[in-house]
């Protein structure tokens, strides 16, 4: 099994000491510190933006079918989505706790397997979220007919963009240390909002059912 390195600990905060910055008009002493990996950073952020925009455009342009293939064992696609979303959200809570542990933000010492838990809970959560998103995009599309639906549509696009950034950032060395926690937090916040505006809404509107 492959081991991607633990997320780089924020040992190097966004470098305060800029050695010999470009001698261009430095009006303020706090001229934007250009990190060494700025090109990589921009590439990663652009990739995520592209994913988010692509999803949104597809959701808007593809005329919703209203129906999609179902998964056996559930009474309907809405139930499947509500539960897959709930699984993803539960795993996202695992993500939050394991990430905090890895960054030493918990009072307890993170056990050695924390990284493995973080990686695998994340992978499963992502793979659980993909069929939900496909159903949303294919059957329902990007919609804005009320606040819940608009928030859900926007955050849905944002979530996959932020997730792309986070995954790409993991595999690129030399990126600023704040990137992973920031985008990890964004992914978690996004998934939480998605869950609140879909699964929780569904369960409170129609009742908890399978």
């Amino acid at each position: 099994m492959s081991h991607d390195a633990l997320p780089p600990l924020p040992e190097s905060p966004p470098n305060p000491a800029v050695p010999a910055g470009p001698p261009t008009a430095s009006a303020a002493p706090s001229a934007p510190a250009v990190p060494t990996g700025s090109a990589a950073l921009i590439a990663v952020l652009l990739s995520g933006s592209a994913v988010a925009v692509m999803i949104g455009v597809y959701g808007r342009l593809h005329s919703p079918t209203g129906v999609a293939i179902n998964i056996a064992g559930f009474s309907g696609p809405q139930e499947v989505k509500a539960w897959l979303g709930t699984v993803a959200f539960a795993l996202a809570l695992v993500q939050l706790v394991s990430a905090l542990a890895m960054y030493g933000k918990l009072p307890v010492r993170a056990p050695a397997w924390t990284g493995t838990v973080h990686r695998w809970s994340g992978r499963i959560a992502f793979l659980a979220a993909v069929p939900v998103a496909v159903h949303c995009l294919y059957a329902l599309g990007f919609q804005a007919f009320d606040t819940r639906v608009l928030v859900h549509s926007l955050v849905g696009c944002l979530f996959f963009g932020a997730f792309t950034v986070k995954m790409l950032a993991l595999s690129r060395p030399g990126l600023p240390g704040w990137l992973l926690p920031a985008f990890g937090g964004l992914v978690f916040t996004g998934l939480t909002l998605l869950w609140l505006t879909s699964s929780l809404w569904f369960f409170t509107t129609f009742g908890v059912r399978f």
Partner: protein
Amino acid sequence: MKLKSPIVVLVAGAALAVGLIAANMSVFDADSANVVASVPVPSAPITSTPPSSSPSASPSTSGSASPSASSVQVTPSVAAVATYAGKVTGGGSLSIVVKATSVIAYLCDGTNESWLGGTVDGSTLTARNKAGDTLTGTRGGGKVVGSITVDGTTWTYSTPLVKKPSGLYRATAEIRGASVVGGWIVLPDGTQVGVLRRDEVAEPAPAIDPANGAVTIDGTLVTATEPDPVQLTAG
């Protein structure tokens, strides 16, 4: 150099998404025989429901043991009735019911509403009402695509075929001396919008139970049913 696992995760997710979309498209987009098209399709009537002997499109499931709003309920309609429902672009919900050569359409966003009646000629739908609202559409490929103009505003729409409990509901009643007309649209994702008109004053309607159309208006239990375009447009 070994593959980096975050990239593998991304690629796996993207592959899963593409695979699911492809599976969906193979099932639904190729399913153009879903509707009576102008092309002489070998058979396959609407939703391939065998012609039932009950011509009433009433969704009364009062005797049903499963009150849950499962989306796999038996369609109570005869084969000649097709119900479409969806969102208009940037606006409210639209549902269109087609029976024989008659059409009834209802646009509703929970505050404003419009009922339209009309006819089908081949695959072309046209509907209007006294207020001057108009709807045109083309049916085929399991959906109706077109535009609707209400109060001077035009929306485009692409509404797919839907099955009970999704679709159009209407209830008329005399409650405490007031003439009450309610309209509701239930979309496949479970969302519903409805407007109640008491003596021509519109207000958001209380939600119906999609399982049986039951709704309580001013303390009176009323059952909303799918309107019959033939009866409703005859008058």
